[in-house]
């Protein structure tokens, strides 16, 4: 199973790189004579309402989302780990400050921040820059939930037997941190990361549904997912469902690749 998952991801990576040769059309090229075309002939997945090749857009969108969402997740989890860990570790007033910050981040309407950020962006950023900025923002704003979880896990572990034993037997705090705590928190971090990646792709998709996502003509998996809303009235369900399938396969492969969590020892 793991080999299958690894194989899938490698195939995906190859397809994204070699994509240009497989699908000659550019993602922004409008074939205006054949709009809303069904799969076949020149267009293996059909075309969208402006005549753009769906396969080309899928590859381009996958490139964008599958490169940037993990990057945003790394940023978010790094922030979450720093803050959550330090809060759990040091406790006291720092813990209170961090908790307040987490509560604040969670309660303030995030989409307002995103709307505002989108609105103050300079106008002539290239589409790829606008995508990067969107994911950067998502990463900067999306750490609060994970921080909470990490802090909770940290507290649980700190109060468990093996840590207390280590303390009692005279280990230094640094040693406890590095040797005992971090390795045990690693599974939590990993889970949060895996959960964050599709989460960010979907956040970007939801922003697209509100009309505030990636700038045209650059596609992202999110903006392609948005087109599923046409499913009831379109005959091209293969072309429409392809992005969702791709995302599901990628996320699934991710999950399979990572080894099951070890027990605490």
């Amino acid at each position, binding site marked *: *199973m793991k080999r299958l998952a690894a194989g899938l991801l490698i195939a995906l990576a190859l397809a994204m790189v070699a994509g240009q040769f497989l699908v000659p059309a550019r993602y922004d090229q409008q074939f205006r004579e054949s709009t809303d075309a069904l799969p076949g002939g020149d267009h293996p997945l059909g075309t969208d309402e402006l005549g753009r090749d769906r396969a080309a857009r899928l590859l381009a969108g996958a490139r964008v989302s599958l490169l940037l969402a993990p990057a945003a997740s790394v940023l978010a989890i790094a922030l979450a780990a720093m803050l959550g860990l330090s809060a759990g570790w040091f406790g006291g007033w720092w813990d209170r400050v961090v908790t*307040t910050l987490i*509560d*604040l981040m*969670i*309660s*303030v*309407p*995030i*989409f*307002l*921040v995103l*709307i*505002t950020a989108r*609105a*103050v962006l300079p106008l002539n950023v290239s589409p790829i820059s606008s995508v990067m900025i969107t994911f950067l923002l998502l990463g900067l704003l999306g750490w609060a*939930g994970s921080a*909470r*979880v990490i*802090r*909770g*896990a940290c*507290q*649980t572990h700190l*109060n*468990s037997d093996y840590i*207390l034993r280590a303390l009692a037997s005279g280990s230094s705090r640094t040693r406890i941190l590095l040797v005992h705590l971090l390795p045990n928190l690693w*599974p*939590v971090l990993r*889970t949060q990361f*895996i*959960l964050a990646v*599709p*989460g960010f792709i*979907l956040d970007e*998709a*939801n922003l697209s*549904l509100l009309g505030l996502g990636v700038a045209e003509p650059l596609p992202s998996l*999110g903006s392609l*997912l*948005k087109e*599923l*809303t046409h499913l*009831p009235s379109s005959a091209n369900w293969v072309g429409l469902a392809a992005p*969702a399938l791709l*995302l*599901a*396969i990628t*996320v*699934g492969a991710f*999950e*399979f690749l990572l080894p*099951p*969590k*070890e*027990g*605490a*020892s």
Partner: protein
Amino acid sequence: MATLALTGLAAATLLRVAPGFDVEASELDGRTSAETLRQMRAARAGEQDILSFYGRYLQGALRGDLGKSRSYEVPVMGLIRERLPVTLRLIALGLAGAWTLALLFALANVAWPGLNTGLNLLTAGMLSVPAGLVALLILIGQGPVALGLAIALFPKLFSYSRGLFQQNAGAGYALAARARGLSAGRYLGRYVVWPAGPALLAILGLSVNAAFGGAILLETICDLPGVGQLALQAALARDLPLLVGMTLFVGALTVSANAVTDLASLYLVRSRSGQ
């Protein structure tokens, strides 16, 4: 309490600072004269200085008066009171559904490891569909909106609880207990589920927050008259009193929910380490 006040101030400042704060759609009306526009802008002068606005607003809030919405021209408290039951019902049902399913499936997975692949596929599938899309599909199929919320919340809850349960199940003393011949039920209950308590409670608080977030999207798309839909409209209409009032109110709710779960979690942790 301080957090709450801060949150409200943050929301208010954001709104005030957001572009388009004091423009009206009338500005694009070909009939409107310059003098009328000037008077319309002057009418919003009371909200220009955000700090003094917020100070006055908080004073009112402490008395229970959350101000009057600019776009609806009715008291904010009234709007919230009218819409809260809808949202609470949606969140309660959605959370109950998501948690029940997540815990059941997670336990099942631990009991029968063969289910792993199938459940991974299910989770991956559910994770890859945006909540907005789920909402639309439910709308078309005329299904219950709470189902959409449950679907949106399920994957993360399931993944996390399964991880916790598997970790507990793999622990030395748990395996030993099983080897000793402890019945499946008691083994699962005592060694798998019970130790996961504090961590699960931490997630509970978080899931309430996530549920509110999901509620906003679901209510907007499925047109449910709840507080979530109100929040989005307040942001888009730059309705300062409404947004601040809502932020304070929802903030109060989530902060208390989280405080409760934090306390419960802390209590559990302390009581166990005391064993």
